[in-house]
């Protein structure tokens, strides 16, 4: 029991960060970022390069992932999404663009980092063992704690900083936010950069545990969409709830259903279908709060 909870919490925190990035971009720009998983993979490879190739400390790798992905996010908004949104009123346009960016990033990752599974040496050794009831390697605990700290940091940032407030305002009423003096273009770019950065950070965190490979992009995007469908798209609390719920479901599934083969995601999808039929807007479906 303790083991399942701890694993769920550890996974859930990573997932929540991924979902927060996706939901931030959606709420600000009404864009479904299908390239979110690829941004996560990119973050993993950047940390891998900095830590395993250049031999620099893990924290430098994580910062590098954050910066590189923030720049990629900003560029995507400034030169791709902004122009498409100005020219086309149809939502499919940005969806196609996002899908295109996903394929493009996959190609770039293949070209630059190759197709091999990559990992970094353990950042801390040792295993925490509480009477065999709860066993968790210290590096997982560290990565889980970092992710939780970042979720909390993100909430505080959105709640109390001037920039965070402006992004919430923009998500809730674009026109009113403009009348307060919020520059829509500028804050859309900041929001996109921040969302991509979160994906990159999770990639950097998880490369230390599970490693990274090219094929993880698509499935990660699917998981991210699952999470915001569970929680309700465009809501901070929904993304966090969705992340932790999916983390817990996976953790429970991997422990209890393992005996029946690889059925965890089958069970999760089935549950989600029923859930969405009953509550299509997700748990907390409403604009940002």
């Amino acid at each position, binding site marked *: 029991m303790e083991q399942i909870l701890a694993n769920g919490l550890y996974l859930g925190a990573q997932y929540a960060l991924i979902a927060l990035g996706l939901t931030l971009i959606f709420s600000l720009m009404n864009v479904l970022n299908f390239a979110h998983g690829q941004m996560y993979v990119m973050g993993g490879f950047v940390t891998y390069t900095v830590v395993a190739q250049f031999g620099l400390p893990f924290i430098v790798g994580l910062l590098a992932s954050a910066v590189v992905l923030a720049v990629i996010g900003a560029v995507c908004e400034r030169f791709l999404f902004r122009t498409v949104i100005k020219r086309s009123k149809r939502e499919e346009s940005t969806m196609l663009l996002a899908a295109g960016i996903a394929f493009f990033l996959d190609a770039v990752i293949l070209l630059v980092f190759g197709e091999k599974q990559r990992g970094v040496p353990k950042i801390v050794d040792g295993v925490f063992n509480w009477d065999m009831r709860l066993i968790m390697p210290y590096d997982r605990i560290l990565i889980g704690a970092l992710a939780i700290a970042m979720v909390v940091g993100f909430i505080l940032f959105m709640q109390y900083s001037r920039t965070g*407030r402006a992004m*919430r305002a923009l998500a809730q009423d674009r026109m009113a936010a403009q009348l307060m003096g919020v520059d829509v273009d500028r804050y859309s770019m900041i929001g996109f950069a921040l969302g991509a950065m979160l994906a990159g950070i999770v990639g950097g965190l998880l490369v230390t545990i599970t490693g990274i490979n090219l094929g993880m992009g698509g499935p990660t995007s699917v998981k991210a969409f699952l999470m915001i469908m569970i929680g309700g798209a465009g809501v901070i609390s929904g993304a966090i709830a969705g992340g932790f719920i999916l983390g817990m479901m996976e953790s429970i599934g991997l422990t209890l259903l393992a005996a029946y083969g690889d059925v965890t995601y089958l069970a999760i999808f089935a549950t989600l279908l029923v859930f969405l039929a009953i509550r299509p807007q997700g748990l907390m479906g409403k604009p940002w709060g």
Partner: protein
Amino acid sequence: MGQMLNFDNVELFYDHVYALKGVSIDLNEGETVALIGANGAGKSSILRAITGLRKIKSGRIDFMGERLDGTAPADIVRKGIAMVPEGRRVFPFMSVKDNLLMGAFTRSDKADIARTLDSILTRFPRLKERYNQQAGTLSGGEQQMMVIGRALMAKPRLLLLDEPSLGIAPKLVQDIARAIVAISRDEKVSVLLVEQNSRMALSISNRAYALSTGSVVLSGESKALMNDDRIKAAYLGGEV
């Protein structure tokens, strides 16, 4: 009393709707000017043109001797123009406090912002009671007070109000009207007031323009307009 706003021969379109057909209005420092007229006359379009939310087709807009049209909405706020939009447009999932703080988005002096916030909470004590409540859960009247407060948080020189009495209980309309008079007096802010409640608008303004289908049809001192037969027939009839 120098001229503050000059709105000169402005034309404005929405796709194919001809919303302003060469409208000219002006406003002096310290004045309260009302825009009255029926639905679709173009009142809100004038405010949207001033705040830069809509580009104008021709004509020009000057504010404090500087050209305004073509400036981005965010920069227009920084020049000292704040607007309370039609339908209030609160940030529904933000607290009253955060809504008010958003009003001060363009300002950076924390102590000065705190002073403005204090004066607004003193002016509208109801907002103080509801300070941490989500704005979407306020009553219509409370929301209206909040968005007026939110606009004042920018410390504007010109306040644009779009139908502050819309959807508000008649008793509260009186309060709102009194608040507008008090604000223009205390804060030394000029007011451009759009209203369908013409009687209220004329009673608290110095001058007024009557609009009809995108053109100014009458203008003058509000006192005089209130006794004008054409205004009485077109805008004051039926109301008491």
